[in-house]
């Protein structure tokens, strides 16, 4: 895990920064949002060496330089499908049976 907690120059990383402090935010927000800063994350190639949480500048895919704190090194995607949903499992079976019964009773008419 030590490899992924430190970025070297050129590594693909994600940085995190505060875009707006609570006082600078829109005045028309529900309290649970208004009391929190507006955070931002951007990915790019690290320009220097940094450990997680340390400041670093990245060059993004469009060539912009963005500075923030290192939040991930070589960030991946871990979203998936998950387990089957029991409440959905019967639907296909039920509806196919129903369609078959309907067509049998309306032969030539459907």
């Amino acid at each position, binding site marked *: 895990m030590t490899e992924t907690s430190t970025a070297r120059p050129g590594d693909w990383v994600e940085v995190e920064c505060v*875009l*707006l402090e609570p*006082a*600078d*935010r*829109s*005045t*028309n*927000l*529900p309290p*649970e*949002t208004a009391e*929190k*800063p*507006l*955070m*931002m*994350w*951007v*990915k*790019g190639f690290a320009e220097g060496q940094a450990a997680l949480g340390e400041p670093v500048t990245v060059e*993004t*895919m*469009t*060539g*912009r330089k963005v500075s923030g704190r290192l939040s991930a090194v070589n960030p991946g*995607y871990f*979203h*998936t*499908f*998950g*387990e*089957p*949903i029991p*409440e*959905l499992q019967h*639907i*296909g079976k*039920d*509806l*196919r049976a*129903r*369609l078959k*019964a*309907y*067509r049998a009773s*309306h032969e030539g008419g*459907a």
Partner: protein
Amino acid sequence: MATKFDAIMARRGEIMRQALGMDYSQFEQSPVAFDYEGMMSAHGYSLQDIVDIQTKAGVGNTPLLELHNLTDLVRSVSEPGKGARIFVKDEAANLAGAFKDRRASVSIHVAKEKGYEGVIAATSGNYGAAVASQAARNGLKCIICQETYDSRKVGQPEIVEKARICEAFGAEVVQMTVGPELFFHMVELLDQTGYFAASLYSSFGVSGIETLGLEIAREMTELTGAPPTHVICTHAGGGNTTGTARGLKRAGATDTQIVSASVDLSGLHMASDNDFNRKSFTTGHTGFGVPFATWPDRADVPRNAARPLRYIDRYLTVTQGEVFYVTEALVKLEGLERGPAGNTAMTAAVSLARDLPREATVVVQETEYTGAGKHHWAQLNFAKQMGVEVRAGDPRDNVPGTVIVIPERLEQIQAQDFDVDRMRRSYVRNALKNAPEGYQPSDDDVAFLAADTNTTPEAVTAMIGELAAKEA
């Protein structure tokens, strides 16, 4: 007190003018009215030009499929003589997997022609993928601003997937926590980069959807001998409905009823850090549908090209659980595995078709791609993790953010009519509220409001009278 947010927003007009490549002030007629058709045609492209742009872009001409199994199932729960034929335009077949490619293809074409180095769009939806894909094909740089996470850096799997696909196409994705200031940062980035604003709500984008209406009218005429009696659109910001309806009309399908459909998310606040991950839908819901229809000019362009009240005949809402049920039914019965949000209109179509005569034809005008994260299983598993109860039962017991009730039987699916007249009144109230205080609408303003709400000048005058009486 003026915040940093207010300061940028005050310069928004000037920045957007540069970034849109069009001066919207030329269309303004009064503090209330503007020349909508003038704005829509100012880009100078004919409908055939747009078809040509999209053909080159690899967009459009998606399959129109008749759903024989779903139709028969609906007939099995309909009264005798009822149960309309159901069709779907499989928009997932577009390059980036949704009808949004139609919107993006025109915007990116314009950006390229006008010599911009890159494009920026603010979207957590399929539009980001569409812009990123078209930008990649045209060698333009691309930044997508996305509302991704709550304050704990947790995001709906569907949005996380949309970030992934944008990055796969080479876009820079700027991910943010919950809040309308997404648009503030987009404006800041436009100012900083000089890129083109590929707004969802520009006339370029909405004109790009007109080809969908055109294809539906033509293909249904070939298949059934006439344009469809009903077209049903999943409704969020209103561009889908507006563009499709305009295309149908331009193709001569003036009798086709335009129905919008959204997932009912009433009770959830769109800017709430707590509610953000309890929506189970990222788009196609009333949280966008109602505010944008009743005040379109809240968008990131001075005048929104998406003005659905001009076109809709009915606005239906369905529950979260009903959409997940129909998404599963579509996979198992029609071999169409598609994203849940795009099946919102399909869900309403099941209910609508049941009450229409057998001769009627209902076209569901979109589907969207599916996959890891962007899938009904992923959204339901995530809902459970967020503490939302998921159970089988009567969909009327569904409470957004608290309990998702999956119907037990097809006949439980019952779309609800949202009061379109109420939306019209709300729109007129907002239009007047946004004019200077004490401004008296002229006859031309009344005529504009009548066109913008698809009513009559008399009806608008009556609404204005009611509003004045309420305030007095």
